[in-house]
């Protein structure tokens, strides 16, 4: 009770407590009263927003002489770059004025930038809208009017044939094909005499048949149309042989577009024409033969005219 010894702990003064509370609610202040020492409220005013500071100055003008430093702080805090840009070292008369001028400048700049961005966005949207899909009645202009397209779309088989032809030409170039043994001679057998094996599938374009080899020497007179060079070329080209008779139902564009199903030149079968080890890829594909070596009757005349080596 009467022990009034030295205080063992330091309690903040009421002044400090009040300053703390007032600072926490700094922007709710509307006036600082009739007279108050500037030192007392300085920490509070430091934490006021510029609007509150203006309001307090209007309500209690006596604090105005002391506020320039506060306005200066606001300027530096909010518009540091603009301050360096527009105001050089000279001390402005009223920092409050400086602050509001800077604020206006900033607002103007933002407005400019905002409108620029808005315009850009609108332009981008315009461009995008142009590229959108539009519904219309008119047909777009035909792209390629020059080439005539096939009247019917290619069937799968036709596509396979054309692909195979392409592959054949690329894979089986002249080098890959082994040279024809020169002594062998072949003769063209009259097609009508050749027995026709049963066809697995009869397709107007490509047909498979077996050609009977000439067994006797009487048939040895060589056909000039089968020069060794050319036959070497054809030796590996598709062991499958053709039906001599042309297909009864020709496709309308087939002859013009694809090489006519030509018959194999004299090397008849896969077993004879090449080394046994060679894989017989061509037999698996219905390869159209080279037109030049076709032995079809209607083309036979022209093929003979092919230069023979």
């Amino acid at each position, binding site marked *: 009770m009467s022990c009034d010894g030295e205080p*063992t702990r330091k*309690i903040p003064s*009421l002044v400090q*407590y009040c300053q703390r509370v007032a600072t926490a609610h700094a922007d709710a202040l509307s006036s600082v009263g009739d007279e108050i020492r500037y030192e007392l409220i300085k920490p509070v005013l430091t934490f006021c927003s510029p609007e509150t500071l203006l309001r307090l100055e209007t309500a209690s003008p006596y604090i105005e002489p002391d506020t320039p430093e506060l306005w200066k702080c606001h300027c530096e805090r909010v518009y540091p770059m603009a301050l360096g840009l527009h105001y050089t070292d000279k001390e402005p008369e009223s920092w409050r004025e400086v602050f509001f001028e800077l604020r206006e400048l900033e607002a103007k700049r933002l407005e400019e930038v905002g409108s620029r961005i808005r315009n850009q966005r609108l332009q981008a949207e315009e461009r995008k809208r142009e590229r959108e899909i539009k519904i219309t009645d008119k047909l777009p202009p035909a792209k390629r009017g020059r080439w005539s397209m096939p009247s019917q779309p290619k069937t799968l088989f036709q596509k396979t044939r054309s692909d195979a032809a392409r592959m054949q030409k690329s894979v089986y170039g002249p080098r890959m094909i082994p040279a024809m043994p020169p002594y062998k001679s072949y003769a063209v057998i009259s097609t009508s005499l050749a027995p026709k094996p049963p066809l697995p599938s009869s397709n107007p374009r490509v047909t498979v048949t077996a050609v009977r080899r000439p067994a006797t020497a009487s048939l040895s007179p060589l056909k000039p149309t089968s020069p060794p060079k050319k036959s070497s070329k054809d030796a590996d080209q598709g062991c499958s042989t053709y039906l001599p008779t042309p297909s009864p139902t020709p496709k309308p564009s087939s002859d013009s577009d694809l090489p006519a199903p030509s018959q194999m030149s004299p090397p008849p079968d896969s077993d004879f024409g090449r080394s046994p080890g060679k894989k017989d890829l061509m037999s698996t594909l219905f390869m159209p033969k080279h037109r030049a070596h076709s032995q079809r009757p209607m083309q036979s005349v022209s093929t003979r005219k092919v230069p023979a080596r």
Partner: protein
Amino acid sequence: MTGDVEMTDDSTPKDDWVLITSADGFSFMVKRKVAMTSGTLKNMLNTESNFKEAVSNTCEMSETRGAVVEKLCEYMAYKAQYEQVPPKEDIPDFTERIPPEVALELLVAADYYEV
């Protein structure tokens, strides 16, 4: 002169109560020890002086509202009580006991009474 004045009550000077009145008619009684927390009041109530306040054990805060005086007394009691408490123990924070509406007035008063 210092010894001539006698206290009317028997209790020791440190034990007696002090009256504090506000501008709008409120009165608060606090222990002298508590009132001595305030530097201004300590001088006012100093028995060695001839101040009216010291003689009558009364302080009239004629410029301060009752609400503010109340908070003043509250703080003085808070401080007197917890000053002796060793630092390790927790004590309540007085910040919560100050409503923002009186904060500014209390600030002015606290400054005047050197609290």
